[in-house]
């Protein structure tokens, strides 16, 4: 009897949930670093005179931990790890993710994208790069390695499985190291203040996961109501 009632209740709730999915909500927040920002080593680019020239006036540093004013942590990817329906999880944000090789660095250093979402790898540099993502083939994504000399057209590709995160490197310029973060559903990446907004989240209860390459992941429970964005702030402890 109870199970019948339960089924009925679920049956009644289901369409309501689908309808409300049209009313878009969002999840916002800030990611901060607690403690002193670790020293990021300068990069010796002397192997390639072109790269050296690009950084004559702005020395390049590693970007494993980028901390802005007030301790805001940049390049943290936020995504919904629980609570999305299958249909919602298959919807990536409309904006095409673009990975640029600029001044012998990756811009952005961390690129978030959806499963099966098309992304673009381009080069702004007058030096040859090779773009070499190294996913785990046993998890469903297959590594590849393509060259991109100056003026070469962008490479378009996509990943068919969720993977947090895929290291990307350039073998020619060994300091070039970044990540593709492949997730299901809406996502966001923190800006230089550590702020983020995950758009297009239907009302509901969710678990949001924050991923940072050095500090790993943290999760938080968030409720999004119609017209009322959910908030989730995260703090990673400096090592």
């Amino acid at each position, binding site marked *: 009897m109870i199970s019948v009632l339960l089924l009925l209740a679920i049956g009644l709730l289901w369409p309501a949930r689908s309808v409300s999915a049209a009313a878009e909500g969002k999840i916002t927040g800030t990611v901060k670093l607690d403690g002193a920002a670790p020293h990021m080593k300068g990069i010796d680019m002397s192997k390639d005179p072109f790269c050296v020239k690009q950084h004559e006036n702005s020395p390049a540093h590693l970007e494993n931990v980028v901390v802005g004013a007030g301790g805001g942590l940049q390049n943290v990817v936020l995504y919904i790890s629980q609570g999305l329906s299958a249909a919602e999880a298959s919807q990536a944000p409309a904006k095409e993710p673009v990975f640029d090789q600029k001044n012998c660095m990756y811009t952005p250093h961390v690129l978030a994208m959806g499963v099966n979402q098309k992304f673009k790898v381009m080069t702004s540099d007058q030096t040859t790069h090779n773009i070499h993502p190294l996913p785990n083939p046993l998890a469903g994504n297959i590594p590849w390695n393509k060259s991109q000399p100056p003026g070469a057209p962008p490479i378009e590709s996509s990943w068919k499985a969720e993977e947090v995160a895929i290291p990307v490197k350039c073998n*020619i310029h060994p300091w070039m190291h970044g990540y593709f973060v492949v997730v299901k559903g809406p996502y966001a990446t923190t800006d230089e203040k550590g702020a983020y907004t995950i758009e297009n989240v239907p009302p509901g209860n969710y678990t949001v996961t924050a991923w940072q390459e050095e500090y790993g992941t943290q999760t938080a429970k968030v409720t999004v109501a119609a017209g009322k964005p959910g908030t989730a702030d995260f703090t990673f402890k400096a090592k």
Partner: protein
Amino acid sequence: MRRMMLNGSLVLTALVTIALCSLSWGQATKAEEDQRLGMESHIGKLTGHATSAQGNYRRYCVGCHGELGDGEGENAQWLEPKPRNFTLGIFKCRSTTTGTLPLDSDLFDTIGRGLDSSNMPSWNPLSAQERADLVAYVKHFSARFVTEKPGTPIEIPKKPELTAERLKAGQEVFQRVECWKCHGPTGMGNGPSAATLTDDQNRPIAPYNFHDGKRFKCGTTDEDLYRIFMTGLDGTPMPSWSDNIKPDEAWDLVFYLRSLQPMKSKEKELARQIGLKSGAAAAAAPAAQQ
């Protein structure tokens, strides 16, 4: 006392459950692999069967590539480069595009040829049928060969006539796409990025030196050389160039690379006649960039 027994039985139940779960997990993967033992290979008129290769694999391959095909055989610790891990389905020598599975014939050729500058010998002493069977057995280690089709083989147009213009054009390609970054201004494998190269397992790996006369890893013909740089060698720093070198230019580059090798060749002779300084101009390229 009663309570302790209850606790004890709970723990026991939990333990048994865990044991059963891990047992069934192990069986599932073994079952999956056994299922894949039905794997076939098709090379020309030959059909290879994984089941027929079990004996030969145990006898000839298991020492390096391991019982599970993961490249962790008992000899692996002494070898450099390391034996291939077949479970990943990633292979250097392919006629297919980067990030795709090789053709059966690619694996067949590798087994027959062996891999120069490694511990992988030529297995041509085995019959063609035995090698075809081994191809099927190698494939059975990776689920990718069940779920994915091999990539599209790149097209190799007929080799054009060697001319002085083509030889010079080949040198220009070498400079333009910056092969010298790794392979060195004169092709000696001593480019500015050579020392820091690592393979996908993060082990140091050296770029090919065109001057030492060793065979290429993936075949010795001009077509093999064309294929090597166009498809790239997956699992290594060598990327695919097929998006950025046109077929015609690729042949020019083949001619130029041949002229760098120490062996007697038409290309080397022509380069001498026209006074093409191997890499003199290329050596100036890094300087010109400054």
